[in-house]
């Protein structure tokens, strides 16, 4: 057989019916992740057609998007803190899962959390699997060498009913990342720089494979941050070849294989990395050895500059509209822009290493008086561990709010929003107009940059504040 890429191997392994000129491939799905927002209508359709769930055992559910980040112990609490529609949506999800025998990590479960944080944490996310979710950031799971991609609600119904999807084979894009990460520069800065380079539509129609010495040196949490934002470059998915780092991370996780099954799985995973002479439809290289912490200045993640730079100048109408919305001026430095809100959280940056990063800046310092800072762990697991290590106390003493796990201000569906006109430095993945609240102005950054900006009260370079 000719040389194959990681993507090609995973794809080939899941083709039920091959693609033809007349019809897309029927692709088998190994893991279906679900949450309350993009599933109710899929269940409605199945119900109306009298269809049952083919493999409830391959679907996992949680509550994250419209869920409050204040403590909830019973469903009754929901009615007190949530909008009626959000509460109804959560109830619908719980009911749909109960009726259909789908495992739900809901309130009271110590495995609840953002769907893309809990999949890996549980060990459900594994190399070589096909993983889908009615959520575009399913690309996160590619960090394990899985093929993870976001689908719409109709397709959620397809997976529930048949465990398969109709798919055309996407193109492949190799992104080679070389160089040692400079101090104070993180995976978030790398992916922002990549999106800045290839553009928000640069990956359209493609599955990205991130390769190179930088990627090999990243831990799993950082790799997830990179793959998470593949969709921000328009890509279908982003993948990283599994290696010792991947295998070590998964070993002993609740849903990872055990005993002989583990050994067999590891042997299979070892064969997944792209063959040495595998060809890609396109290749891009980036050297990050001189990279500086990155921040966005506009209304999409491709509008990004080093934090030490000024807002760029352009005559393009959409560019000018973005600057007007952001109330930033071309030619003015990013450093020193007043900040109202800082959000550390989201499936991009809400895991332990992200909290450690933010904590390393906040230790012994205070959040500026003018700033509201929210720290929202990605899962109950992360929350518990952080609390056991005293990070909650550290954040609170610094003047930040410490919340329950969920998507929170990443998309402002649960009432956690930035107010009109407020500038929010956010570790999330989308700086679209109104994403974090009507009229809110989002600046995407790493947890280090976010924490440094919280302390300074203005957009700040974290490097001078790094502990020795």
């Amino acid at each position: 057989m000719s040389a194959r890429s990681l993507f090609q191997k995973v794809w080939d392994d899941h083709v039920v019916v091959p693609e033809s000129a007349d019809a897309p491939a029927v692709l088998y799905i190994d893991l279906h992740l679900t949450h309350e927002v993009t599933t109710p209508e899929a269940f409605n359709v199945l119900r109306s057609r009298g269809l049952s769930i083919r493999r409830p055992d391959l679907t996992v559910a949680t509550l994250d998007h419209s869920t409050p980040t204040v403590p909830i112990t019973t469903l009754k609490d929901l009615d007190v803190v949530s909008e009626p529609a959000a509460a109804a949506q959560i109830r619908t999800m719980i009911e749909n899962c109960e009726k259909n025998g789908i495992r739900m990590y809901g309130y009271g479960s110590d495995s609840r959390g953002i769907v893309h944080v809990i999949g890996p944490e549980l060990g459900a996310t594994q190399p070589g699997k096909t993983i889908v979710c009615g959520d575009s950031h399913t690309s996160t799971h590619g960090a394990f060498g899985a093929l993870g991609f976001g689908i719409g609600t109709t397709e959620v119904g397809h997976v529930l009913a048949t465990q398969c999807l109709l798919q055309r084979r996407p193109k492949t894009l190799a992104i080679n990342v070389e160089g040692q990460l400079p101090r104070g520069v993180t995976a978030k800065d790398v992916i922002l720089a990549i999106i800045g380079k290839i553009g928000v539509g640069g990956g359209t129609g493609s599955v990205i494979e991130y390769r190179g010495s930088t990627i090999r040196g990243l831990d799993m949490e950082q790799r997830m941050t990179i793959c998470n934002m593949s969709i921000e470059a328009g890509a279908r998915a982003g993948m990283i070849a599994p290696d010792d780092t991947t295998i070590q991370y998964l070993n002993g996780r609740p849903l990872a294989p055990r005993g002989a099954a583990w050994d067999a799985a590891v042997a299979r995973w070892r064969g997944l990395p792209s063959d040495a002479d595998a060809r890609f439809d396109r290749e891009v290289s980036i050297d990050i050895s001189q990279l500086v912490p990155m921040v966005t200045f506009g209304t999409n993640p491709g509008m990004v500059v080093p934090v030490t730079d000024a807002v760029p100048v352009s005559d393009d109408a959409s560019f000018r509209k973005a600057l007007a919305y952001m109330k930033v001026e071309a030619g003015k430095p990013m450093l020193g822009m007043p900040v109202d809100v800082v959000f550390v959280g989201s499936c991009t940056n809400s895991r332990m290493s992200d909290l450690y990063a933010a904590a390393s800046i906040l230790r012994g310092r205070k959040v500026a008086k003018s700033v509201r800072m929210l720290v929202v762990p990605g899962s109950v697991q992360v929350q518990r561990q952080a609390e056991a290590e005293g990070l909650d106390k550290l954040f609170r003493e610094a003047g930040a709010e410490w919340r329950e796990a969920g998507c929170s201000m990443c998309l402002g569906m649960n009432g956690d929003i930035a107010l009109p006109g407020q500038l929010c430095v956010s570790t999330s993945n989308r700086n679209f107009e109104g994403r974090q609240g009507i009229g809110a102005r989002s600046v995407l950054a790493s947890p280090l940059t976010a924490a440094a900006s919280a302390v300074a009260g203005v957009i700040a370079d974290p490097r001078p504040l790094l502990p020795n």
Partner: protein
Amino acid sequence: MEKTDIVRSRTVVMPGTDIDTDQIVPARFLTTTTRKGLGKALFADWRYDKDGKPRPDFILNTPAAAGCQVLVAGNNFGCGSSREHAPWALIDFGIQAVISTGIADIFRSNSLKNGLVPVIVDQATHGWLLTNPGVEVTIDVASCELRLPDGRSVNFPLDGFSKYCLLNGVDQLGYLLHQSDAITRFESERAWKP
């Protein structure tokens, strides 16, 4: 899904690039548990002021936009989240086709499953449509042709399967359910089990 063969309509033009699904339907409208009635949420933050009154200067609120079924948009339309609420809202509002130089993958896939026709055209055609808002165009799904009022016609890409589904109002779930034997065989024969 309704059958879609011909869309004939004046165009409404939104030239901005990278119009994302958070603009098409802001997240706070996603607490719904049904696809119905989302047209009122379409472009809500651009369409209404903070008191909920329509902004007269927003293109979809202008008299010229009334009844238009074809949206001409800037490059990379529909980027961002996977919410199918985006095509649901456009369709509920009355849009049946989107023309652009680039349409984001998930939005495109969601559109095809709901009978909203994604029409990708070259820069020159796109440029002409942007500078001539309100012209009457015809989108012919069977021949994958976009016909302009000056008699020109340009082809747009649409794979045979999607075309078949649009023309016959076939939803893909039926097709997938027919593959049930192959799926069962795959499940029992595969080398490893998830």
